[in-house]
């Protein structure tokens, strides 16, 4: 197992290299640059800035320099928020995004799994149809509708929650964003869980467990559920990577100072270093969580062995 993890970490290096290279050149293909804004800088200032950040160097040299800095853990300064380095921006925003994302993920996994099991055990009955209806609503109503509705009802009408803001991480400020983030995830997890649980309940070894007169609890939880969570584990990996790195919509609507908005803002502003930083971050999260999923798989399923 150790060897396997080590091997996977080694293969992550070329993967990261390819991602960084592609992202670096792709963003440069987009027209414009960090300092061609609508308000227009005077040409002298613009030239000064570009010289300061080395943007006049040949592209390959900029690429080599970027890689060098990256290897030292240095993401460089942000071009549009010149008082901060990319690292500083992440240090401030990432913990916030991770808190929200992790809570939303946990909520989604717990609620989604329970709903999925309930649906599977009541297949084609009222309980099942209610879960399916809920799941369909959850995955079809977009976040940018859910978030304002929550603000309107819970914030303005009933005054139970603040309308937005981080409030130094007070629990009450997190409720709205977490619910908004988790609703579509609950829907997806519930659907996945329902499907795999139905399949698991139909399998031959469940028939054996029933024939042995085992209790419903043992049949459903011990024997059916453990096999049925595998698809959820697979899904949770990429989902975690996406949730933990923040959501632009939720963070914008609820005015949360996370890192979700950086990716889009930075790309629009041609803030090359910030775009690259975000790409590297998301890639690292994705690779890490996929590895965690594969390790978890071996934990859940003894047939999976990695040596």
């Amino acid at each position, binding site marked *: 197992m150790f*060897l396997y993890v080590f*091997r996977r970490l080694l293969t992550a290096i070329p993967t990261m290299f390819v991602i960084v290279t592609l992202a670096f050149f792709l963003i440069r293909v987009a027209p414009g640059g960090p300092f061609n804004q609508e308000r227009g800088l005077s040409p002298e200032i613009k030239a000064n800035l570009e010289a300061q950040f080395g943007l006049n160097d040949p592209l390959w040299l900029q690429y080599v320099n970027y890689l060098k800095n990256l290897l030292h853990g240095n993401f460089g300064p942000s071009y549009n928020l010149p008082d901060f380095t990319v690292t500083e921006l992440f240090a401030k925003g990432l913990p916030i995004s991770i808190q929200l994302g992790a809570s939303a993920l946990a909520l989604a996994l717990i609620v989604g799994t329970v709903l999925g099991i309930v649906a599977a055990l009541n297949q084609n009955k009222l309980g099942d149809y209610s879960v399916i209806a809920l799941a369909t609503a959850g995955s079809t109503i977009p976040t940018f509708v859910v978030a304002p509705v929550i603000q309107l009802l819970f914030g303005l009408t009933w005054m139970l929650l603040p309308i937005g803001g981080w409030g130094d991480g007070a629990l009450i400020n997190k409720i709205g964003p977490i619910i908004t983030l988790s609703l579509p995830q609950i829907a997806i997890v519930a659907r996945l869980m329902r499907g795999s649980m139905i399949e698991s309940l139909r399998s*031959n070894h469940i028939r054996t467990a029933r024939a042995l007169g085992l*209790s*419903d609890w043992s049949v459903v939880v011990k024997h059916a559920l*453990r*096999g049925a969570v595998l698809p959820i584990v697979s899904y949770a990996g990429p989902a975690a990577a996406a949730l933990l790195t923040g959501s632009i919509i939720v963070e914008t609507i609820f005015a949360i100072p996370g890192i979700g908005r950086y990716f889009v803002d930075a790309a629009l502003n041609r803030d090359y270093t910030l775009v690259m930083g975000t790409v590297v971050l998301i890639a690292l999260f994705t690779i890490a969580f996929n590895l965690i999923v594969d390790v978890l798989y071996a934990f859940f399923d*003894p*047939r999976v062995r990695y040596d």
Partner: protein
Amino acid sequence: MANESILSVKDLRVRFRTLDGVVDAVKGINLNVRAGETVAVVGESGSGKSQTMMAAMNLLASNGEATGAVEYRGKNLLTLSKQELNKVRGRKITMIFQEPMTSLDPLYTIGNQLMEPIMRHRGLGAAQARAEALRLLELVKIPDPERRLKSYPHEMSGGQRQRVMIAMALANDPDILIADEPTTALDVTIQAQILALLAELQRKLGMAIVFITHDLGIVRRFADRVYVMRSGEVVEEGQADELFANPQHPYTKMLLAAEPTGRKAPPPGNAPILLEGRNVEVEFKIGGGFLAGPPMLLKAVDRISVTLKRGQTIGIVGESGSGKSTLGRALLRLLPSEGSIRFGSHDLSKADRSDMRPLRRELQLVFQDPFGSLSPRMTVGQIITEGLLVHEPSLSGKERDARAVEALREVGLDPAMRNRYPHEFSGGQRQRIAIARAMILKPKVVVLDEPTSALDRSVQKQIVELLRNLQADHDLSYLFISHDLAVVRAMSDYIIVMKQGKIVEEGPTEEIFGDPREPYTKTLMAAAIDETKFRQSV
């Protein structure tokens, strides 16, 4: 005590609600099991024999519904609460199933799964249950039981898994063991071992056994009484020896006569050699990869030579994993192999895909699984004429259709059926379609990979006769791969016995059957021949 009826099924009806309406699987049957006796419920697929017992155990699929009564010592199992029922099933009445490979939970150790019903029904603690589990594994003769307690199902063979299932079923000293086709999925030598084990355990422990089976050999050897089922009804019942000696119902008579009979006429002595493999070797790589070290090599076929003449049938016999299917595929160059393969004047050993394409029509393959090998989204006509599109592209649609009609007629199907889809056909009909798909190309060599193994005995017999007739009409050469010796005997001129990729013994059919030399061949024969003998005596 001995004649006391402990399980009685009274006017049991089982129906399934499906999208096509209500299907009556069991239509009001009556059945009795007395303490300590062996009852066989015999029938072909779809006869309702399994569903009868599934209903008794309350294991029907969720769209199934049972009415009537299944009384165990006076209690109607169909109306018991789940809690009451769970005091009976797994304890007093237990069941083993047809699918040993999937009937154990893959995620828990054997020990864990064995201990669970013991702890539940007898209220023992973990340490005592573990000791019991160990005793049970010894009882069912699993070698090294201490270590096996910690094994997972995937680390055991099918035969061993079935032994574990039996151990679980016997854990609480049941009154009745229901065995639903317990050996059908196993190799013949393993079948014999499992059956012997069941018989021995019954002598030792004295429980009643209900055998659900299509295999009359098992019934003959083990059953005291027999119920013959067909389309959800019991058509005949009685003492086993009386029923075999003097069957009353035409269906019972038909079942008893369903063994493939007759022998193939040998090809003329001067028949030319059509397909010849010399020292054919197939190796599979297992594992390996980046930083994982070199892969493990598995020799699936180890230097085997085969010479197939025109009009000849070579039977390739062996148990699962013996490499018989791999050999068939390698000879058709569907798998890369070492050694030389000649087909007529062509050297296949160096042929690549494009070299092979024009030869493919002469080298056809029919598979075991008539359900998986036909595309569910194409009509039968499209399925059987697909090969013509590749090999005779100049044919017009009308000509292709005419060929389809001819091919279907040849395999004994109504040509009007060619616009239907595969799911509308039975297993035997589908296998006919698969054969038509091969025959329409007018091949010279056909590799038949277990073509009858998924079929009921009575249907097997028809397919064997069809294959023999087609061979005689078209001077075909067959490589007939099977683990079923009765079928192989009825089909082949020459037999190759394989084990672990090697030839154990080969020779003309009558020699191999009449006077097997190798111990392995003898075991294989012994496992099968009992059945053959008794059939001949009937």
